């Protein structure tokens, strides 16, 4: 069965902290994605990666960076967390077909 695992379900951080969100997939997919989900806005793409060490900005990359050192792992980094980054973060992966497989999400609160 396809599996995308996000390391934390809930996180509470303080303003200015550096935050790491981790995502691992076991399907050998080339493509991985980070989205944030906010009520009424649907999913918005932050960054995606189409190969190891390759990354592309999505629609809302400001305040975020990513790392993909290994094919199965895609990390989202908040360099200096702010309250407007309080959100649900969803990781997804995609293989050769155009179906995305999602993790369960990380709900981040920045106080």
């Amino acid at each position, binding site marked *: 069965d396809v599996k995308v695992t996000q390391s934390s379900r809930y996180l509470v951080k303080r303003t200015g902290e550096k935050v790491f969100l981790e995502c691992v997939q076991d399907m050998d997919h080339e493509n991985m994605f980070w989205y944030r989900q906010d009520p009424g806005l649907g999913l918005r793409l932050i960054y995606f990666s189409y190969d190891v060490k390759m990354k592309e900005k999505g629609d809302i990359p400001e305040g975020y960076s990513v790392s993909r050192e290994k094919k199965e792992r895609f990390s989202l980094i908040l360099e200096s967390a702010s309250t407007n980054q309080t959100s649900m973060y969803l990781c997804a992966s995609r293989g050769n077909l155009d179906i995305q497989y*999602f993790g*369960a999400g990380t709900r981040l609160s920045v106080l």
Partner: protein
Amino acid sequence: AQSVTQLDSHVSVSEGTPVLLRCNYSSSYSPSLFWYVQHPNKGLQLLLKYTSAATLVKGINGFEAEFKKSETSFHLTKPSAHMSDAAEYFCVVISFEGGFKTIFGAGTRLFVKA
């Protein structure tokens, strides 16, 4: 530019009655269209996908969607709602303009009353 609009932010039905979740898209090309479902505190799961092989697409859990090019619609239906259908549903279009891009609708939250 390609876009997708979900016409209702919330839909409420009684258990056993039909479900209709509406989605309109705009596309310069023959679109790839999907419906995903998100249950509380879970990630998104694929319900069904339009592949152009047939305009009526059957998905999991009794859901189906009909692609209507003349109306640029891809509405999701189910004949009889079940309590377990309560979730948020996303209509998604794949854009090929300027590169491969996935565009999500804002979501429709389905409430099912006993």
